């Protein structure tokens, strides 16, 4: 006899996105190691006294007990593993965290295991809370994410003919998925991004290293600009309609940290 009781499962998750649902519920997009991106409802999570509400805010790393559903799962219990508090009080870090979370969501497939993407996002949010080099972290994250999900850009050989590239300045084609040699440059009408030898060396270093090894990397301003354009163009070619949170990241990127707003409505 088939039991009518819903199957329960527990999972770690990072809250990637949420929206309001019904009177006081919340619809969540969660990145999990075993099931990739899943959607779940959290009943009553918007009420002030909710036992779930504080745990399932955006970018929280949580442990969840869930009721299995056909399309939507149901959150029955939540415990915070790490809320990355230091990231939440700095709008610049926050904007980068949201950007990374959106990238992770947009390249992940629903209900397909994604342990490497999950671990990458959790580690990166942890580093984001403390690193002095948040922009390098975002670039490293984007490269590592694209590599894990099979969209690694080609920096070693020509993306068109496969010949090894001379140590010189080259161009990058998002459409062709990597650097292009001088002979193949004129083929096609795709947009080409300049990539100096210095830029190429930094990109290769970022692609093969773990973040702690590149966290103190000092990248020149021209190389930074080129790397930004190359990674943005490649990411946008992989993700339809671009990354929505990039506009906010660009707006607040260089804002100095202002610190938390004083709390309380105490009488003077």
């Amino acid at each position, binding site marked *: 006899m088939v039991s009518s009781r819903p199957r329960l499962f527990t999972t770690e998750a990072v809250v990637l996105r949420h929206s309001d649902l019904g009177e006081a519920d919340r619809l969540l997009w969660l990145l999990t190691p075993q099931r990739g991106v899943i959607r779940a409802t959290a009943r009553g999570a918007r009420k002030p*006294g909710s036992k779930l509400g504080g745990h399932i*805010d955006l970018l929280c790393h949580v442990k969840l007990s869930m009721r299995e559903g056909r399309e939507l799962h149901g959150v029955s219990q939540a415990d915070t593993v790490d809320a990355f508090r230091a990231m*939440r*009080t700095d709008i610049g870090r926050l*904007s980068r965290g949201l950007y990374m*979370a959106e990238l992770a969501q947009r390249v992940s497939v629903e209900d397909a295991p994604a342990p490497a993407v999950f671990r990458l996002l959790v580690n990166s949010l942890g580093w984001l809370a403390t690193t002095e080099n948040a922009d390098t972290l975002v670039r490293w994250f984007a490269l590592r994410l694209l590599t894990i999900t099979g969209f690694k850009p080609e920096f070693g050989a020509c993306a068109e003919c496969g010949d090894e590239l001379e140590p010189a300045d080259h161009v990058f084609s998002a459409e062709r998925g990597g650097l292009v040699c001088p002979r193949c440059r004129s083929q096609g009408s795709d947009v080409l991004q300049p990539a100096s030898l210095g830029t190429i060396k930094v990109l290769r270093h970022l692609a093969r290293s773990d973040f702690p090894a590149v966290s103190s990397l000092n990248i020149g301003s021209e190389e930074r600009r080129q790397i930004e354009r190359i990674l943005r163009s490649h990411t946008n070619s992989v993700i339809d309609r671009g990354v*929505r949170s990039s506009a906010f990241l660009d707006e*607040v990127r260089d804002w100095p940290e202002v610190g938390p707003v004083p*709390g309380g*409505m105490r009488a003077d």
Partner: protein
Amino acid sequence: MNSNSTPSAAPPVARLIEAFNRLPGVGPKSAQRLTYYMIRMPREEAEALAEAVISVKDRIVLCSKCLNITEEPVCPVCTNERRDRTRICVVEEPLDVLAIERTRAYDGLYHVLHGSISPVNGIGAEQLKIRELLDRLRDETVTELILATNPNLEGEATSMYLQRLISPLGIKVTRLARGLSSGADLEYADEMTLANALEGRSEIARNDEPAAG
């Protein structure tokens, strides 16, 4: 609306079900229940409901000062001479004004942003009523701005954004206290709420002198 769910409904009935189904939080089953309730409703009640919906669309405007929903060009709160004009409480939605008014603990003015910054959903600061707030701060004699955005990541992002814009104006910026809600169990509190409650702890009022021994 999934037309398969009401295969035999008469066209006017199907139309009403579909209209209800477009409302937030109303699923296909609730839409059907509401529709069949209305079919049995006395005609006067149905007309009163229809008239109420139309009048909301015809007569409701945004207050030209605080941008709350109102029937007049300037809302009753903004025209009330007894309200404290040196303080503005910034909220995300008109419903938040009602919630704060119910406390009877605040007598200042409001400003409704009509949303919060939500980069993942493509909602940026330019889509909120932030420029109107800055205009008010230049025109009026405001000394304190109370940020009452929701205590979640998007509300915090909005608060930090506003603080950054407003701090050069020399206006005191505060926000609602974060902490444990009344009636909640400590063991279920998340780490952010507990940490905020610890940071915002206050001394318990005590009698000036202990009782003489």
